[in-house]
């Protein structure tokens, strides 16, 4: 599968934000009218550490072409060190997802302090471009041709495994 020119592919990217840093950075990008592609959609959590692996799998299942975990910089966590726990979980989940055949760029993490609206917008722009090059992800889309279906386990199994 490749890129977008002939298919007009526009990826959909789900971004998990923490309430204190990255969500505020996204707010700041808005207030400062910094532009980024409309392909990203945000979910606000209190902390990146709230990110249950099930949320990520649900996002892929629901048609996201990529998922991004964003949060405070390691030393600046509102909850002291909970973003480090999120990082641990991220690394483990990344391995699982790569093992399932997912390109690593479809599951990324970005740090953004509440002051880093520009950096967050830049990261969004970069990731949208990267995923556009990767092409669509087939997970969660029923009745796909055999090539894609054989590459990933069945949907229910995935969700069960995460619960």
């Amino acid at each position: 599968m490749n890129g977008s020119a002939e298919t007009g592919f526009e990826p959909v990217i789900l971004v998990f934000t923490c309430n204190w840093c990255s969500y505020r950075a996204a707010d700041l990008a808005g207030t400062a009218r910094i532009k980024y592609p409309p392909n990203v959609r945000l979910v606000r959590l209190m902390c990146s550490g709230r990110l249950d692996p099930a949320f990520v799998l649900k996002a892929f299942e629901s048609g996201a072409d990529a998922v991004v975990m964003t949060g405070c910089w390691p030393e600046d966590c509102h909850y002291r060190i909970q973003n480090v726990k999120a990082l641990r979980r991220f690394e483990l989940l990344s391995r699982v997802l790569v093992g399932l055949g997912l390109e690593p760029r479809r599951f990324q993490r970005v740090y953004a302090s509440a002051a880093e609206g520009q950096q967050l917008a830049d990261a969004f722009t970069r990731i949208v471009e990267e995923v556009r090059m990767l092409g669509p992800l087939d997970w969660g889309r029923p009745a796909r041709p055999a090539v894609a279906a054989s590459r990933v386990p069945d949907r229910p199994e995935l969700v069960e495994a995460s619960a």
Partner: protein
Amino acid sequence: MSEPRIGVYVCHCGTNIAGVVDVAAVRDWALERLGGHGVVVSRDYPFMCSSLGQELIENDIKELGLDRVVVAACSPHMHEKTFRGAAERAGLNPYLCELVSIREQDSWVHTDKVAATAKAEAIVAGGVLRVREQTPLEPLHVPINDTTLVVGGGIAGISAALEIADAGFPVHLVEREPSIGGHMAQFDKTFPTLDCAACILTPKMVTAGSHPNITLHTWSEVTEVSGYVGNFTVKVLHRPRYVDTDVCTGCGICEEKCPRVVVDQAFAAGLGYRKAIYRPFPQAVPKYPVLDPASCTYFENGKCKACEKLCPPQAIRLDQQAEEVELKVGNIVLATGFQPFDARRVEAYGYGRYANVFTSLEFERMSNASGPTGGHIVLRDGVTEPKSVAIIHCVGSRDTNYNRYCSAICCMQSMKFAHLIREHTDASVYEFYIDIRAPGKAFDEFYERVQAEGTVFVRGRVAEVTNVLRYPEEAAQDGRLIVQVEDTLAARQRRIPVDMVVLSVGLDPQPDAADVARRFGIGCSSQGWIIERHPKLDPVATMTEGVFAAGCALGPRDIPSSVSTGAAAAARILGRIQQREMALEPVQAIVDAERCSGCRICGDLCPFSAITFDEQREVTEINRALCQGCGVCAAACPAGAITATAFTNEEILGQIEGLLTMTVEPQPVAVPA
């Protein structure tokens, strides 16, 4: 659960949203596509946050019997409270109102109107599928103990303590040194008004020391903090003074008779002497002396006891032990201050190698009339007046090798020194600066005044202070110090001989700042300054409810700012005390004991000690008041026994589904044959 009745309200925000997002299309789409998910009414309005917009929602709740509301407008950080208030007025639990952002996350960051409208629809769908799962929540009310703990007895802590005490509430003021007063007590004059620091500070110290609502704990430290906003338990260690303060009259005879003299590294900055039993300075509050066992002959070899024998009221207690007291307080102010940057670290400036290189703190003591030289500005020999003095700015500040930040006070303090030198001596004065930063009230006027007095300003960072002569024509300068600098205004290297160098050192965080932050459960930056809840709008609150910060513990600042942050913290606390109780957001983790397997995976994840294990029932319990609501435990619980209220799995999974499945059309995909 019967099918919910959801209202969707799409805000134009003037043209802020409507200029990019087709608001009417979103409104119609919501009713059409989300009707099957419980949306029974969908409206748009130019300004939802206006009172008319809010009334629209309130009327619908009442007349159409809505039990859920989604407002698509600005960021929840802007107007979540507004719309929750509207829902509450109409009799709906406020936590059944969801505000989703189609402004900061959509219309303000995108230009493609079609894509932005589709994204707004997805965001609304996310809100609808999320709000369906929401349950009514009640805020947690905790009582507020009206006693306050202030840690640090510098000018910031004193200000906070006095404000609260004057309002009629008890304060415990804990200070590590034998006397309150902090660094300000060491200073001679204050810039730019040249007020005598002691003259303006000591009345405050005396008031704090004798205030009926203030309990002083000097020569003491906080060792343990537990509890939560309104209900902290704090342990304070009183180090032994070896003086019975109930009996001591503060007459000073012990200090007079003590035969042991040592260099005073603390208050006199190493320039003066003190006895083994001493008061750090004459105006110390409290007036009681403290005995330093490290320098006392009796503690060395069991002999002497001069103080004990000669004390008129028999107040010396050489067998006194440290004592720990437990305090119950409702709020805490951290005013733990700073330490001066250690000038020895900048080896090129020769502090510690060359006798006549002084730090700014040494200069403060020297220029103080009650200081070790009686206010005479002299070289290290104690008698010779300097003919020329170099003052070097930004020592340890604005320097990638040390601290990158500006220490805020050094420019003004350096110019104050220049003024005092010109006033007290005939010396010529050179200021070596990178930039002059004089942004305060009457600061720049003071800069002009110092220039007019004849101080020479050389713009350039000093490369080296040395006594090594490099050129034959410098032979006459033998024994003096030479300041090597690139004068960036004249674009040339200079070697300026002087008799005395004053290093205007920056401000460092306290060496144990990270420990203190951990003990009080707050965050500090990688340097060690306390992080405020919001740098602009909440500059004295910390991320932990009930813990406030004031003064230089937040970052370098001058005296007026220390006083105002102290007072600001006090005002925040007084407001809470007068409410008597406080509502905490019900964003929390709750354990379902039935489902808890007792695996204790969650216990290690909580940095707030909110999670405890009931050994008898073998289940985990979460203290609601300690829980900060991050939700890490909920994500980790393998049994699904922990619910993160307001961010439950069902709510978030619903939002994800709404964001992704309602508008995403399958993309055409090229499949290999």
